[in-house]
């Protein structure tokens, strides 16, 4: 049964339950989003292309307008490109570029089939003919923006070294176009990413970053750099990462939000990995800047910053503590209550990993006032966020000490938690049952099991747990049965008379208003 397997897999990733010390924390599982959504996102991503207006570019556009726009057939293009007349070569390359830049159905495949890519790459090296270089660079950029096969065609045409040397072209628009092309190649996957890094793309790329670089150009550079950090299996080479990190940290101070956003995405890629990789990022001291950025109102900044911080707290206790010291706990309440469900979910995921820490980190979580927003999210949040919140509570009850669990119950966690037993998702139900069992264990330690029983019953929880005994999932059924047999079998334990445990120290009673909605 797949559900069972998933469950145990997840359990292994818990700090306190598993024995596998490498995988104590939950790594970010690639969420399988619904098909519909994925497709929609893809469309949006492909449409994100931006046109950056540069001075040089305007010049070239002006020139274009002076010359009549010449329509050429594919045959004419092949002939002209392979010919020896530089005028005709420019015309043909421009016509090619224009076809590849139109909004609808660019004929990438047909252009590749013409076999002119090697020729276009050759044009990149014509240092005495800047317009030809630019047109060829643009055309190749757009070919490389297609599928993996398209990118492959450009790389195999020998474009990588040519583009890298164009980075130091005296013409800024050509250099920018090369940055763009290299970004597309790097974005194809780890193979070409590392091929670029091995061709030493990073030093000339970093040299382009300066206080006087125009914003549009800088956006392109940042995006290309972030692509050089992207993808796992394998991770990008360590020394390359170390070269880029300080630049990202500078770029994160820029005022342009796209530049900040892409830098944060880069950091999030770099932290999406093993603890050693996380450590490199933590060592740069960037965490406090990330915490500042996660509090920004713009989604494009907040989202990657939160992702990066969330990745960091999947690491070791020390790495998590670094995030806490940077102030992450202060911003989480707002994020848990954010209007956007994805932010709620990411925030809850982050919180769940902090809650998987040792008691003293759990204590910081309590002191920072995170229990009320957590309970509220559990009660009213988006369902996916609720699931993460359930994990947070589960981790809390696994790692927290008795006093902390009592505090959790006092915050009113039981009602929304028990309500979620009505969810249709058996995994979530199992985690909740486990959590309830943890809470009972804590209650037993302070002799309050009886009162907890009453509380659960008052909240209609018993009814829901009983109903789960008829659940299709065998594990759910057994977990529900266990709870009922242990705590609700009906035989009054003689030693639990009213009066015991009324010293107020472990008072489970919740303030009335928490239960009136």
């Amino acid at each position: 049964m797949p559900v069972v397997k998933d469950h145990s897999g997840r359990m292994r990733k818990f700090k306190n339950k598993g024995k596998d010390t490498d995988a104590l924390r939950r790594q970010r599982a690639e969420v399988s989003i619904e098909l519909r959504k994925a497709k929609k996102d893809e469309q949006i991503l492909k449409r994100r292309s931006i046109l950056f207006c540069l001075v040089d570019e305007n010049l070239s556009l002006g020139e274009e307008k002076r010359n009549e726009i010449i329509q050429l057939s594919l045959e004419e293009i092949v002939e002209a490109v392979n010919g020896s007349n530089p005028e005709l070569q420019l015309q043909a390359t421009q016509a090619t570029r224009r076809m590849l830049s139109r909004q609808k159905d660019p004929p990438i495949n047909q252009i590749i089939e013409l076999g002119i890519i090697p020729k276009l790459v050759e044009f990149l090296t014509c240092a005495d003919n800047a317009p030809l270089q630019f047109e060829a660079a643009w055309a190749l950029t757009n070919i490389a923006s297609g599928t993996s096969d398209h990118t492959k065609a450009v790389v195999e045409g020998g474009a990588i070294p040519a583009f890298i040397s164009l980075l130091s072209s005296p013409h800024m628009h050509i250099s920018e176009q090369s940055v763009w092309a290299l970004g597309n190649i790097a974005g194809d996957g780890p193979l070409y990413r590392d091929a670029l890094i091995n061709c030493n793309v990073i030093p000339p790329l970093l040299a382009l970053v300066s206080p006087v670089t125009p914003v549009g150009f800088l956006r392109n550079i940042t995006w290309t750099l972030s692509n050089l950090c992207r993808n796992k299996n394998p991770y990008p080479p360590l020394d390359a990462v170390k070269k880029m990190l300080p630049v990202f940290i500078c770029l994160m101070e820029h005022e342009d939000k796209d530049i900040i956003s892409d830098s944060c995405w880069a950091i999030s890629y770099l932290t999406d990995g093993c603890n050693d990789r996380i450590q490199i990022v933590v060592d740069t001291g960037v965490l406090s800047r990330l915490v500042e950025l996660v509090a920004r109102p713009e989604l494009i900044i907040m989202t990657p910053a939160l992702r990066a911080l969330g990745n960091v707290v999947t690491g070791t206790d020390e790495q998590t503590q670094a995030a806490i010291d940077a102030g992450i706990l202060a911003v989480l309440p707002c994020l848990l209550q954010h209007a956007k469900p994805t932010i709620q979910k990411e925030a809850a995921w982050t919180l769940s990993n902090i809650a998987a820490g040792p008691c003293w980190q759990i204590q910081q979580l309590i002191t920072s006032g995170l229990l009320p927003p957590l309970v509220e999210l559990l009660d009213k949040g988006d369902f996916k966020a609720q699931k993460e919140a359930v994990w947070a509570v589960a981790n809390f009850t696994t790692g927290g000490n008795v006093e902390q669990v009592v505090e959790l119950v006092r915050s009113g966690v039981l009602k929304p938690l028990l309500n979620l037993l009505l969810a249709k998702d058996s995994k979530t139900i199992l985690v909740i049952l486990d959590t309830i069992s943890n809470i009972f264990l804590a209650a037993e330690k302070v002799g309050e099991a009886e009162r907890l029983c009453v509380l659960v019953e008052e909240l209609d929880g018993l009814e829901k747990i009983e109903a789960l005994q008829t659940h299709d999932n065998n594990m759910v059924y057994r977990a529900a049965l266990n709870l009922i047999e242990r705590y609700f079998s009906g035989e009054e334990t003689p030693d639990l008379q009213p009066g015991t445990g009324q010293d107020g120290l472990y008072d489970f009673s919740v303030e009335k208003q928490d239960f009136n909605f």
Partner: protein
Amino acid sequence: QRVLLLVASDVDALCACKILQALFQCDHVQYTLVPVSGWQELETAFLEHKDQFKYFVLINCGANVDLLEILQPEEDTLFFVCDSHRPINVVNVYNDTQIKLLVKQDDDLDVPAYDDIFRDEEDEEEDSENESDGSEPSEKRRRFEEDVIERTMKRRQRREWEARRREILFDYEQYEYHGTSSAMVMFDLAWIMSKDLNDMLWWAIVGLTDQWVQDKITQMKYVTDIGILQRHVSRHNHRNEDEENSLSIDCMRIAFEYDLRLALYQHWSLYESLCNTSYTSASFKLWSVQGQKRLQEFLADMGLPLKQVKQKFNSMDMSLKENLREMIEESANKFGMKDLRVQTFSIHFGFKNKFSASDIVYATASLMENIEKEGPETTNFIKALDSLSRGNLDKLHLGLDLAKKQLRAIQQTVASCICTNLVISQGPFLYCSLMEGTPDVKLFSKPVSLCLLSKYLLKSFVCSTKNKRCKLLPLVMAAPMDVEQGTVIMVGIPPETESSDKKNFFGRAFEKAADSTNSRTLHNHFDMSIIELKTEDRSKFLDALISLLS
């Protein structure tokens, strides 16, 4: 492949469901039937069954919202929607992969043109770029050819287009109304497949009559559809007319009739029916002493002995019954009731049982909203559905009894509302609120009963008031729903005028009023003009509604 059948709780839906069930039986299609009384139940039912089913049939629900948006189905899930609610959501209209609408071809839908409300994704490039949602940056990017002027032009065009789109959609979605009865649509389907039976035809008739009784369609539409069904009736029932001897005890025969517009009179006494039919009671103004007097004069004019009029119709003198329709009609004309006769159909089961189509509608609707709880929520639905089968006369008779109770309760409530001046003008609409503790108030916590009451009340009010402006106003009516939760059910109905197009703008207005005041409302009913509302939010909600419609 098993099919999931989601059926709303109205008589037309039940009739369509009966026809479809019969068709499924013909073709050995397996199905599961789930009654749904509102959006919440529809969503829950979908979530519970989406893993086991790929095919969903929705009857009288689902057309007027974006189904894909609210249900988020998998890509291979298919919805067949047979729903008389209008306007149909534009996404449902233009989605041709997952949503299949069952609509009569000649129904005038007035759907906006595709290009006026949808644009190709590519054109939206700039927007998605501007209001970025924080998704991960793309891995590769193409550089487009466009210059700045072109872009600003495009943006301006786009803004204009969007403004126009909003206007078009506003016009399209402003009014709620009803299209062809779902039972009729389903019957058409059966007919096209040459699988139509006389039983199915009867259900189509009952479905249409439900729309008429509930005042959902215009008189014009009713007469047209009656005409269509009449042709089917003569096609199916001509043989029996010739060979009267062939009429056996278990056969059924449908006949077209000009019948009296008197509710349930063949199963009641003529007197009771005259008193409890909205048309006659409003015309006589029976809530007043003069009204009662007018009724006596009317009976005297007909020359019927009171004793005969007050006893069960079945037991009335045969000699009196023979010319009864003509006699009543003649007197009615003198008393200003020109429309006492209506075109309708009746059904004979063997020799003994004769029912008019409206009898069935009243009976089935009453079974559906029976407030004497027994068993789970679906019991009423199942009983109502069963009462439509001809083998279940006992259930039908039970329904008739309940319907009489309901009509009496409505009539008494109308009388008390008018006599105690409970209908007040709020400016743009009339308003009437039933208090907790009013007799039969529990009955009116149910949507169909409350709607029926509202229509009868408005009719009576229009007859009773001398204020000409008030005669043209729509009515908003509220009744206690759940005392423990402190909620009321509220319904808005269009003005009661002869030329009424039966279009209702309260759905949108309720939504807006709730939004602007943060009132805790629940728009759970398939008719958007029926909502649930927290009692304590009622006054601010009404204030907003008044200023919105003024």
